[in-house]
Every structure is written in C-alpha cells, then in structure tokens.
C-alpha cells in the first residue's frame, strides 16, 4: 500500500533539517492552506460538472458538451464568469453582516474540509476529538445562512433563513446521534483510529444492524444538512426564488454555491470515513490474495471512490424526489429519525457489550 505519509513526512524532515522548527511549521501551514484551498476549488468544479452530467443523465438530456471535450471545462467557464460578475451594493441592508455571511458559510465549510482524513498522513490535524470537531465546525455554517437571510432585508430571504435554521438545527441532532453510534462501536473520537480499526471489516459490516440503521439515518440527515433536494426548502426555487441567497450576486453568491457542493462532499466523506472504512481498502478476512489485489489500489482512490458513491446516492435522490413541506420535514426528524437514533444507540450499546 502506498500511503501519502511518506511524502508528507519527507517534506517535514526536509524542512526541519534546513530551517528552525518555527519557520518550518510556518511554511508548512502556508503550503497546507494553499493546497486545501486549491483542492477545495478544484473539487467544487468537478462536483458541479458531475452533478450536471448526472442530472442530465437522469433527465434524458446530454448535459454540457460544448465547452472543452465532453464539456469538462464548463465549470471553469462558470468560475471565470462568476469571479468577474459585479457585486451589487444594495440599499438598506446591514452591509457588514451581509458581506460577512458569505464568508462564514465558506469558512465553516473549508474548516470542515481540512479535517478530513484523505489518506494516512494526508490529514491536516489528527485531533483526538476529530468527530466532535467535524460536527462542531460544520454546524457553524447555519450562522452564515441565518445572517445572510436576515441582513438581506428581503422577505423571501428571511423565510428561507428561518426554514434553514429550523432544518439544520433539527437534523444536526440525528446526524450527531448516528455518528455517536459509530463512536461507541470504535471507542474513539479520533478519525485515524476509527479508520485503522476498519482494516478487516468496515464499520457498516462490523457494527451489524445498528450500524446499517445509523448509516441510513446519517445519509438522510446529512443530506438534509446540505440543503439539497428533497430538503432544499431554504432555497426552494419554486417558492422563494432563491431562498436565503436571493440578494447575493457575483462571487458572494459563488461562495454559497461552492459551499453547497462542498458540503455535499464533506457529508459524503464523513459517511465514507466512519461507515465505509475511509481510505482503507476492502479487506475480507481469510481471502489473502483478494486483499493483496485490493491493496494495489491506492488508498486515496478508495477514499474518493467511496465518497463519490455516497455523492451519487445524494444526487440520485435529489433529482428524483419532490420537495418536502416544512411540517413534514420536521415531523420526519422529530418523530421518526430522532427516536430511531436514540433506540439505535441503545441497540449499539447492546451490540458492543454482548458481541
């Protein structure tokens, strides 16, 4: 297995041999920051293209074909356009909050993105409270959305923001609870430990029925957290024109747009890490030669493969289902998913104790 920790460790040692520790760290921070931002942007472009193509496939269309081969440069063109679009100064808005909101959303998204374990050693910080950190920082985004809706001085955005607040805060619960189920199974909050434990059986297999239930709940709740259909009430196009970001133009709208796609990636990546073994290849105990073959596929590909599988599920649902109504949405959370996750935690506790 080729792990990226070889590369990262080599860079670290190389810098430390020639520079003071402080300087080496500084350079590493800057490089990591740049790399994270670049990967973030590139991933967003890939995701936007992928969504358009998959959506077109589901709808018997072709999707982008003209810009570059098979339309792959379509999202690049979009990016150039949106970067140079005018930023409108709107009368009678709370300018400071209005500008801040877009940054809050994207900062929350980038911070979460940075903490994902892409590979062994390809991990910005390996907190011992990794899962907790992911949950905490990703829920900061809702503040940005609420601010955006409130500061825009527009009735649609306020309704969108209030819907968003209600939705995100509710679904945060079952999202967290289903992750807790896995934490109980692995006995650790540290992401690297959780991944390493799944060497011979991914959590979804190891944890039996409670883990499968938790996986389902997490997919639903996580999907709801990304504000995408059928849970796209905050920006319900046919109801609220564009929801909480109605008044945003140019790159500020681009931030919301990017964050939306990257949140989808983050949710899928967390699902892949905690339930599907992260970068760990598929190993089956006893099938040694099969495991050897699987080891030839680099872990980073495993990680992205699993993540894109989860993303595909999300897109599939999004382009098939109609939108929920706000009361149905909250009913689903508070009357079905929440009690189910609580019961599931008890089940998992029994599973961990007795098996």
């Amino acid at each position, binding site marked *: 297995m080729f792990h990226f920790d070889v590369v990262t460790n080599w860079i670290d040692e190389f810098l430390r041999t020639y520079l003071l520790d402080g300087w080496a760290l500084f350079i590493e921070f800057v490089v990591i920051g740049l790399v994270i931002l670049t990967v973030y942007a590139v991933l967003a472009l890939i995701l936007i293209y992928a969504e358009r193509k998959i959506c077109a496939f*589901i*709808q018997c269309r072709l999707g982008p074909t003209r810009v570059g081969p098979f339309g792959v440069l379509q999202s690049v063109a979009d990016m150039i356009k949106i970067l140079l679009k005018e930023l409108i100064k709107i009368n009678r808005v709370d300018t400071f909050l209005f500008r801040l909101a877009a940054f809050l959303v994207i900062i929350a998204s980038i911070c979460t993105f940075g903490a994902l374990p892409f590979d062994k050693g390809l991990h910005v910080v390996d907190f011992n409270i990794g899962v907790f950190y992911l949950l905490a920082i990703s829920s900061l985004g809702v503040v940005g959305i609420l601010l955006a809706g409130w500061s825009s001085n527009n009735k649609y955005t306020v309704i969108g923001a209030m819907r968003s607040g209600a939705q995100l805060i509710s679904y945060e619960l079952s999202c967290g609870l289903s992750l807790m189920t896995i934490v109980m199974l692995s006995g650790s909050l540290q992401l690297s430990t959780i991944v390493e434990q799944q060497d011979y059986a991914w959590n979804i297999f190891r944890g039996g029925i409670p883990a499968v239930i938790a996986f389902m709940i997490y997919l639903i709740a996580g999907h709801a957290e990304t504000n995408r259909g059928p849970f796209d*009430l905050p920006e319900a196009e*046919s*109801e609220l024109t564009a929801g909480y970001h109605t008044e945003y133009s140019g790159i500020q709208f681009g931030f919301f747009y990017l964050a939306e796609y990257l949140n989808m990636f983050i949710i899928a990546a967390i699902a892949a890490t905690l339930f599907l073994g992260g970068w760990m290849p598929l190993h089956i105990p006893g099938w040694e030669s099969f495991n050897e073959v699987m080891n030839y596929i680099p872990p980073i590909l495993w990680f992205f493969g699993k993540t894109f599988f989860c993303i595909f599920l999300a897109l599939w649902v999004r*382009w098939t289902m*109609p939108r929920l*109504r706000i009361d149905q949405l909250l009913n689903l959370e508070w009357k079905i998913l929440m009690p189910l996750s609580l019961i599931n935690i008890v089940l998992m506790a029994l599973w961990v104790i007795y098996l």
Partner: protein
Amino acid sequence: MKMIDKLLAQFAYASVTSDGKYYTVAVPKEKLHETASRLRNSALAFDFLMDIVGMDYGDSLGTIYYLSCTQFPAYVIALKTETDDREDPIIPSVSDIWESAGLYEREVHDFLGIRFANNPDMRRLFLRKDWKGYPLRKDYDANPEINPVPLTNENLDDMETVPVIEIHNGLKEEKTYSLFEKGEYVVNFGPQHPATHGVLHLRVSLDGEIIRKIDPNFGYIHRGIEKMSEAYTYPQILHLIDRMDYLSGTIHRHGLCLAVEKGLQLEVPERAHYIRTIIDELTRIASHLLGWGCMAMDMGAITAFVYGMRDREKIMDIFEETCGGRLMANYSVIGGVMNDIHPNFQRKVKEFIPYMRKMLKEHHLLFTGNPIARGRMKDVGYLSKEKAIALGASGPTGRASGWSNDVRKIEPYAAYRHAEFNEILRSDGLTFDRYIIRLDEIAESLKIIEQLIDNIPGGAYAAKTKAIIKLPEGEFHQRVEGARGEFDVYIHSKGDKYPYRVKFRSPSMTLVSALKAIATGTKVADLIMLGGSLDYVVPCIDR
C-alpha cells in the same frame, strides 16, 4: 323544456325569448337582483354563473349574465340588463348570489366603468389605477399619449385600498377600506416569480409559513384582445385567440370557429370535424402533460417536468408536420381546417398512442407513487362540489370535486358524438384528485383519438366561405371544453365584417378565485403546489 318556461313565466316584467336550449331574459336593472336570486333559488337552481359580459350599446351600457344549472347543463339563460346613465352607471351586484361574480364584475368595471353596488371589491382588475378611460367603451380614446408607458411601479398602498359602493334602501354610500392591516407580513409572489405560471401577482399575508390572506392581482399580460377584436375581421381574430391560452389554443380557436359557423349556418364537412377533434384531443394531452410537469416542478421534482416535456415533444412533432407550427398550430379556420392532414399524420398518431400509454405508466411510477408527493398532496386543498360550482371552477378542477361539467358530453360538438368516452369524475376534491384526473384524462383522450383516427371520412377538409365573412345580426354563444375548463365565446354582431363585441370566458380566472378559496390556511409550499394543481394560464385570464 317546460320547467324553465314555467319558471320564466313568473317574471312578468321580463321579456323572454328562446332559441332551442338558449333563453334570453331581459330585465330592468332594479329587478336584476330579485330575478337573479329567484333563478338561483328555484327548484331548477341556476347555480353556475358562466360569465358576465359587459356591453356598450352606444347610448346605454349593459351586462349579460350567462347562467346554467348543473342538473340540466345544456340549458343556458342569458340574463340581460341595461342602464342609460353613461356618466356614473351603477348596477346591483350579484356577487352575494354567485361567488364567481365578484371577479367578473370587477372585469366589467375595469372595461366599461360600470360600478356594481354592494360588490365588496370595486378595484380595477387588469389596468392600473391611474389608467384613464374605460377601453371597451365605444367612445374610448386609444391615443397612446393619454396613457403612456408607465415608468414606475404601481404603488402597493393603492393596490390595497379597496373602494366599495353600497346601496341600502336607496341610499348610496361610497367608502374605501384597506385589504391588509398594518403590521401584517405581506409577501409578493409575482409578477416575476418562477411558480406563478406566467405573470400572476399574488399578495400573500403570512403568519410564519401559514397563509392568512391572498389577494391576486391580474393585468400584467393584459393585451386588450377583446378590444382589438372589434377592429379585426373574423379570420383575423382567430390568430389572437390562439395566443390567449396558448396551451389549449387549438381548442379555443375551434370554439370561435364553431361560433362563427353557427352564425353563418355553415355546414362544415365531416372530415374537418374529425380532424379538429383529433387535434383538440392532442392539444389536451399536451396541455395536461405540461400541467402535470409544472405541478411536479412546483413541488420540486424537476425530473418529472422534463419527462412531461419530453413526451409533449412527440405531439409537437405531429403538429408541426400537419399544421406547420409547434405551439401555435393555427389550424382551425372558419369552415374547416387550414390544410389537409399530412400523409404521415395517421401513422404518427397511431404510433403515439401506445407510446403515450407506456409513458403514462412511467409517469405514475416516477411521481404518483412517490411517498413524498403523496404525503404532500394528502388532505390539502379541499374544494367541495358546491364551492366549485359557486366559484365556476369548471374543467378538471370541477370534475375532481364531482361536478359533471364536461361540455364534450353536455353539448357534443364536432366529432365527439361519434366517440365513446367517459367523463372522468372523482369525488374527493383534494389536490391528489386534481392531480390524478389529468393523467386519467390523458388516457381518456387517447381512447377518443384511437376511435377517430382510423375513421376520418374522405371529402373536403374545409367548406367554401366567402372572401369577406359577414356575420348576420344577432348574438352567438358557443361553449367548448378547453384543457382547463369550459371556454365560451360570445359574439355580438351587427351584420358587419367586424364583430360589435366579442367576449371570451376564461376558464383560468375562476381557477384563481378557487386558489384563493382553498389556499387560505395552508402553507407557502402548499400555495405553490395548489397553483400547480389548478393549472391556470395567466394570459388567458388577462386576455
């Protein structure tokens, strides 16, 4: 029919004439309200007010109320009244007898300046408050300098202020009230909004997500078709009527052709009847597919919309070959159809029928059975049969509530008498019924087409007409079943090549008042969905 004769004989002051199933009753305006309420409350119960036509007779102004009863829907009474006062014409309102009269009277007020006493809402319907003059009056000055293109939006306070004129015991009292109270959270949906099916402007008072009041505003696509028609010959009017309700344009055009042919007493070849009927039914399928897709899109399922449009393209292909146009088929003309059918027409239609049946199954699979869709349509938007009749919400909406109102059955026109088909009726009147009835009607339309397509008789496709078509003096009324409800044409001719007055009953206008009735108390998302389930077309309302 004896019962109607007996009933009308009670009105000693009225002059009654009859022509088959079509009765004309003229009453003085003082007796109008009394006559109307007696007609409504008699054993026959004329409970369906089809339309109110405002008339400018030159020296007097008048209104004509078209009434029909749900027991014997083929009988139509035209109740007429007049007023000599051109400065301040006031006619008693019948909005307390028929709920649908409210909007119709506002329309007459807007066009002719007649005010209706005791109507709770006497704002202009289509034109802005600052519009000078009443366009349908014969002495209207159409000089564009009097009414230039406005550069500022209409004042919202003006929109809310409702003038009323009340007459109690002969005392006239004029007052105004405001529609919304101070502090209400009023949101504008439209005129530019993705889900208003055109440019409808809904002012909605919200309490959180729950809708308290709805105030629809029309006129953002009012093109004055009725006024323009008065200066156009009959074949020219045909082209305007396509552009009213563009989704069932062919059917409406058919209606106008029938009305003119009725006036000319023109014998239309049987072949033309068959072709028109098939084209009408294809239009209905196309319209319902679009309605289905738009409703799904309003609920957030964009894929369903694309599927609907995909199948609609097949019909557009058939139209294109035979009629030359995609959306605007321009096919029916007075006396028949424009051209003979394309040699491929029958083959293509026959290929289309099994294809559409297969796709209907797919549509059901994709959307009807979807748990979210079912959950959202459940128990929302109940429209009772009585309410549907009172509001005049005809067409699929009324039939979903159990009101049998299909003109194709009531008064079979064209080739419908040769086809066996069922009028789809449902009893619950919920959103789901309005949704499913459209898909069922597609299946039923396919059945009609299947029966007719092989039996198109030979012969001429159009009767010979004179180069200049002059309608004899008189009034002509024709009903047809459009895709979203009953479409009526009323022509008043003075023997010229131009009509003296043309009025079209817009089926969509009553649907918007139905929206007002059923959406109050539901949530914002439901409002959009209910709009989709009623499937109104705004340019048809505004004309």
